[in-house]
């Protein structure tokens, strides 16, 4: 068989197109055009392929156009949770968002996630987010001597908290939460997801310590079921449902 080459798109080649990225930037030291700490939009035009993700586009900008652009990323495959950002006004992982799914005819808006202090460009200070997570004590708590072998549980017991084990701590949910934006004390959806993972684990014995922490003024009762978190989660975790299960456990006293 002989391959017939197409004049415009040779076999195997992915069509390419031009996209504009409009990126929200901030340099704490200032640039020649912008004062220190000033936030501004900057546009970049790049050539992209249909298989490219927003992360690839950001790489092109950083590697070929402007090396000062700052953003976090590590795995580039939706595992590490470093690159959550606000893309076209929705929180997503840059490495899991294809450019062609975003209507590349229009400029693509890229901003840092909201509600956390911006350090530079798309990098935010995640400390308040991690502080909430630490507060719910995200580690196995048990009484008595450790068993000789692993702690067993049935598939049904495991199923109970399966969904919340998938969290990669990207902060897409917490920084999409309107209560977190305004009030600044709320634990945020992620901390509740993290607590849910242990509260409903049959091997853990610290449930009531965690539930008591979430019963706090800044805990689950601040949630107004806006569902922004469930929509934002790149892992498809049913965050609002997990929060409701925690509320139910507190209301009924049963786990």
């Amino acid at each position, binding site marked *: 068989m002989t391959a017939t080459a197409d004049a415009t798109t040779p076999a195997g080649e992915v069509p390419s197109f031009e996209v504009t990225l409009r990126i929200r930037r901030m340099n704490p030291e200032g640039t020649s055009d912008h004062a220190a700490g000033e936030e501004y939009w900057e546009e970049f035009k790049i050539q992209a392929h249909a298989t490219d993700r927003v992360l690839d586009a950001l790489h092109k900008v950083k590697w070929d156009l402007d090396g000062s652009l700052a953003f976090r990323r590590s795995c580039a495959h939706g595992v590490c949770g470093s690159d959550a950002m606000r893309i076209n006004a929705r929180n997503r992982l840059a490495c899991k968002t294809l450019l062609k799914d975003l209507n590349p005819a229009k400029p693509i808006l890229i901003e840092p996630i909201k509600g956390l202090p911006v350090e530079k460009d798309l990098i935010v200070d995640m400390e308040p987010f991690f502080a909430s997570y630490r507060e719910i004590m995200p580690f196995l708590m048990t009484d008595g001597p450790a068993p000789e072998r692993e702690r067993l549980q049935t598939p049904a017991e495991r199923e109970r908290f399966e969904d919340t084990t998938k969290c990669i701590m990207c902060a897409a949910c917490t920084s999409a939460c309107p209560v977190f934006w305004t009030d600044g004390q709320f634990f945020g959806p992620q901390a509740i997801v993290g607590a849910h993972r242990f509260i409903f684990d049959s091997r853990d014995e610290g449930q009531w310590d965690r539930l008591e922490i979430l019963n706090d003024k800044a*805990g689950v009762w601040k949630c107004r079921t806006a569902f922004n978190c469930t929509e934002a989660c790149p892992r498809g975790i049913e965050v609002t449902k997990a929060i409701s299960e925690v509320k139910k456990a507190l209301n009924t006293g049963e786990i």
Partner: protein
Amino acid sequence: MSAPELIDPKPRIRSGRTRRKAERWSWMFMRLSGLVLVLLIFTHLTVNLVLGEGVSQIDFAFVAGKWADWWWQVADFLMLLLAMLHGGNGMRLLINDYAHSKAWRSALMGVLHLSMVVVIVLGSLVIWTFDPCPVDADMSLLPSFCEDVLQ
């Protein structure tokens, strides 16, 4: 080069936890009072605006006629109380969310609580001390049963 020192995760930051169960009761109250309010308000709207002659029937005599019945007094009092507490609690949550400085917070909370007390007290006074047949009033404006009472 040395690895960064690992910090024990256990000592944790305490958030300012006050009254332990307050927020849970507030949450519960909002759902329950919301349910009761839906029932009360729809009954109120149907009886006042749909049944009988509709909106044109509402005058002093209509209100007086309703409140001559203890059942309506209780229903209206409940509606007043729950609506004020439900709305007031909602406003409290909003103030907690948006007013960050201590001064603003206490000022707004003060206004909120004062207005709640004033409305509830005035409203209850009207409902419970209401006189359907005031003496010296124009008989044509009063409910029909006043004729027996006043003569």
